[in-house]
């Protein structure tokens, strides 16, 4: 199967997760996947295998706080919530992203 072009670039996963949790509140891993897919109207798809290691890493950095909870279907799931440090990180990553994309846009326009 050819690699889908809409698999997310490695570095941007963190940015998207942080943004998603900021705007939607605490979510479990599956919900984060669906939300990103949904918000991007299927332009972006999270490679599910890389989500959980990434979530753990972000949790270790202190950007997310995790806890076990119950879903509406009465299943046990691990919910992630953004922390204050996470919000600061989000701001930093947004700024970087905007800078990079602006740079790329300029190169494509003028190079």
């Amino acid at each position, binding site marked *: 199967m050819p690699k889908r072009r809409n698999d997310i670039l490695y570095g941007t996963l963190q940015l998207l997760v942080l943004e998603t949790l900021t705007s939607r509140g605490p979510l479990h891993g599956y919900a984060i996947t669906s939300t990103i897919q949904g918000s991007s109207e299927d332009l972006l798809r999270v490679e599910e295998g890389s989500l959980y*290691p990434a979530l753990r890493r972000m949790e270790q*950095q202190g950007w997310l706080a995790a806890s076990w909870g119950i879903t509406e279907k009465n299943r046990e799931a691990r919910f992630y919530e953004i922390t204050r440090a996470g919000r600061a990180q989000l701001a930093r990553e947004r700024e970087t992203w905007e800078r990079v994309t602006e740079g790329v846009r300029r190169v494509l326009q003028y190079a």
Partner: protein
Amino acid sequence: MVWLRRLVNVFRSDRVDRDAGREMAFHVAERVDELVAGGMSEAEARREARRRFGRHADIRARVHRIEVIGWLEAVVSDLRYAARALKANSGFTIVAVVSLGLGIGANTAIFSLIHALMLRPLPVDRPEEIVQVAMEDGSHGAGGGGPRGTTFTNPLWEGIRDRQDALAATLAFADQRFNLTAGGVVRRTGGAWVSGGYFEALGVPAVRGRVLAPADDLPGCPALAVLSHGYWQREYGGAEDVVGGTISLDGHPFRIIGVSAPGFSGIHVGRSAGIFVPLCSVRALRPGRDLLEARSTWFLNVFGRLAPGTTPSEARGALAATAPAVFRAAVPAHYSPEERREFAETSLTAEAAANGLSLVRGQYREALLTLLVVVGVVLLIACANVAQLLMARATSRQHEVAVRLALGSGRARLVRQLLTESVLLALLGAALGTLFAHWSSRLVVGLLAQAGRAVTLDLSLDLAVLGFTIAVATATGLLFGLAPAWRSARVAPGRAIRGSGRGLVGDPRQRFARSIVVGQVALSFVLVVAAGLLVGSFRRLATADPGFRADGVLIASVGWSDLELSEARGATFPRELVERVRTIPGVRHASASLLTPISGTTWNDDVAFHEGALESRSEWPVMFNGVTDGYLETLGTRLLAGRDFTPGDGAGAPPVVLVSRALARRYYGEASPVGRRLSTFVHDSVGPAMEIVGVVEDARYARVDEDIGPAAYVPLEQTEPWSPSTDLALRTDAAPGALIPAVTSAMREIHPAITLEFATLEDQVAVSLARPRLLATLSGFFGGLALLLAVIGLYGTMSYSVARRRNEMGIRIALGSARTGILRLVAGEAGGVIAAGVSLGVLLAIAGTRLIGSFLFGVTPTDPRTLALSALILAAVAMGAALGPAWRAAGVDPMVALREE
């Protein structure tokens, strides 16, 4: 703090894995629900969900790596596995841990002694800045008076203190043994005379009251004393009211002004100073001999602290520059012009002295280093044993190893895991060894003795010693674990699972085990030879005829400095004492003398032989003693020609002298020297001529192992008294100690302020045998231990080999071989190993025993008799041990052996 969490997770990794698993299971379940809702069948949905999620195992591994410190987890799991394995084979574990414990413990014990005696820095402020000031180039004093090089006179010390600017601070001290009682039997304790700046220079504060200051060390000072913390705890129980109290030292009262900080007991390592008094109080303690003015009494050690930023060589240069002025100002008045010149040319130098001063160190340094080598060898032998045990076990674990290899475990991982087991074993051995070392090092310090005083060393557990132990343990574990682990991991899994190969002769594993045993036998042979040499030396020393009869003699050192006798009475006082003790029942003979054999006190002088009007100076020094009549009888030294002294050889009578046979032979040859004359030198000029009235048997003077040199005796009353004291010697048929009460009361009757110190001649001689005794005892113990370990190794290897070759034995017997043939076969193999080991050992011994040459007495390092005897003992014991397995081999029932595969 991320790392902390990852560290903790090492011990919670099961929980971490379970959480991750649950989380991912949930994700997949949700996906399945979604797909089913979209129309897929449940089975298909599950497959699709799994596919999209990716490989569970991989993702779980990735999460795990993030949450847990990987390498630490591997180490912890290795440790857990190793611990389980060791517990499962508890018999093996116990044997291995005990042998390792003994080996490592012995090494730790000797090293802690070496550390305490030679390496440990002084417990003072910044010990690396402390230096010792010494003299160099040019001798001082005529006729060998006093130690050279590192002891100064007081005028010289004051010159150094006042003139130098190279050192930030200087201090001087002299070790003393103070008598705490006033009259009667002496009770001594270690202490020191110290200069006023002593405590300040060392940076040792007071914990009660205050310590001495420079203002306390001025002429005419009050008698003050500072106690060490240890002394305060021991003698006063840490009583709070000790400051301001009085202590009697050598009969004089001193006021206690303070207690110094814990851990400090002087600069002299091996001695413990409990009481410090200022130098100026010497005048009160030694009236009649003004030590502080004397320009040729050398008794002070001088130390200093480097100025910040200076190096010892800079200090050396600066001190050397001040030396001429210092020495010129302190030249002894009675020196000849020649001696003056030499004296004035003496220079000063400084040596780093962070670990203080020590006479014990000089005496025992080589012995301890030799012992370290010995225990190192014992540890090697023990390691070889444990290695063999491990290899034997490895063979039985081959199956398990092969399965693990087949299942994909890397060889390196396997080797690491096996090595963890070895190191764990070694660390357990080290823990046991530390306990053993703690107990045994104290025992060994008890064996050290120096001039009759017990040696005190700070043996408290120190980081250095602990570090040494752990390093030795780890090296040991790797050493004996590497070979078995490597061999285990090299096993080809297929062959191992199919069945272990039959252990035939020529199997490389057996050859390797055999060569290890050969090495063990060789090493233990060397230790047995060393033990034989050292034990033999000691025995020879202890039984050598010293020229006197040591048993049955009590020595009483009598002092009467407080009596303030007139000069006339003082001169005849020794005789008075001798006459008095001769009346004590049980005393066969008694005499008085300046010194007694092997006492640590010596007196030597050059002599001039008179030939008519000419005098010829001896090229060699003569050992002297001043004695009353009856000395020869009391000590049991035979008179060979002429006569003994009589009471008539007194102060005003013609000077007479007794010479030893060695002196007579050396100068007069075979002719009798009786009637000839000789004299000693008094400050470089010939003294009055003395007539030789008798020749005496040679006797040991200062040490039991010395070469006997020329000696002479002069009447006690015809010599200048050294101090208001004398040594009385009493011979009795019963135990010498039984005389003590009678002598004490006799002396008390004469005057209660007379001080007494008792010793037996036997004890005095025994002390000089302390180092040979230490070496003989320890080398004998370790030699025996090495032999035992090597024989155990041989027995183990032979047993194992026989057990593995049961098949072969069975075949041989079934094919008609006689059982004695089997016996001969196995015994012959053992004999081959032993012979190879002994041959190698002989070579090693010849090369190695040279190192202990200086400790030997009456025997050369390559003594053939000792070598032959050791070989015989080793061979006999080893063959005896090998007979067991050989017998078992011969007793194999062929039917049983052939049936088992």
